[in-house]
C-alpha cells in the first residue's frame, strides 16, 4: 500500500549545527507534503508544507526540499537549538481522497540536540 516513511529513527546533533531529516514516500499522487514536530506529551504541530509541484520551500530556520524523481523529501533545520529536540514526522495528503483529506503519516525521527 501507499506509505510515507523516514530513513532514520534517531538523529543527534550539537547545538548550532544544521539538521537534516529525511523522508521517503511512495504515493506519487500526493498533493502536499507536510512536516510536523511532536514534543513529549503533546500532539503534532505543523512546521511547514510543500505542494507537490514545488521543489523547495523556506520558512523560519527551516527548509523543505522535495525530489519527486526519487520520491524523497527532507527537512533542514538551520542553527539547531535545544528547543528543536522532538520527534519529527513527515505526512502526505491527497486532496479529495476518500478519507476526508486525512493526513497519512510516516514513522518519525527523534531529533536530539545537545548543548
Amino acid at each position, binding site marked *: 500500500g501507499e506509505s510515507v516513511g523516514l530513513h532514520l529513527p534517531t538523529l543527534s546533533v550539537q547545538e548550532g549545527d544544521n539538521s537534516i531529516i529525511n523522508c521517503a514516500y511512495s504515493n506519487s499522487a500526493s498533493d502536499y507534503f*507536510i512536516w510536523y514536530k511532536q514534543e513529549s*506529551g*503533546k*500532539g503534532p504541530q505543523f512546521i511547514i508544507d510543500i505542494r507537490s509541484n514545488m521543489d523547495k520551500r523556506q520558512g523560519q530556520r527551516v527548509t523543505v526540499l522535495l525530489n519527486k524523481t526519487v520520491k524523497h523529501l527532507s527537512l533542514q533545520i538551520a542553527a539547531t537549538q535545544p528547543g528543536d529536540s522532538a520527534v519529527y514526522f513527515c505526512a502526505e495528503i491527497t486532496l479529495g481522497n*476518500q*478519507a*476526508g483529506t486525512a*493526513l497519512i503519516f510516516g514513522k518519525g525521527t527523534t531529533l536530539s540536540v545537545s548543548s
Partner: protein
Amino acid sequence: DAGITQSPRHKVTETGTPVTLRCHQTENHRYMYWYRQDPGHGLRLIHYSYGVKDTDKGEVSDGYSVSRSKTEDFLLTLESATSSQTSVYFCAIRAPLAQTGGYTFGSGTRLTVV
C-alpha cells in the same frame, strides 16, 4: 491545544471492558479525525467524520466505532478493549478551506489495556 480537548488524558482499563474516548472542539469545524500512535508506526487513522452523523473508516478501524451526534463532539469507542489497543490516541480537527496548515491536534489520550 486551543480549540480542541481530549478526555480523559490517561486511562487504564481491563481487557474486555468498553472504553469511550472523547474529543471536543470549540471551532465548529466539519472534519474530525481519530488517530492512534504506536512506537514504530507513527500516527495511523482510525476513523474520521465529515459532519454530524457522517463518519467513515480509516486504515486501522477494526475494533473501534465512532459517533458524532453534535458538531463539537467526536467519540471513539472500544467495545471490548484488547491489549493490542494499548496506545496513545490523538484527535484532530481541520479548518475549512485550509490545505495543510489547518489541522490541529489534541494533546492525546494514553490508554493502557491490562
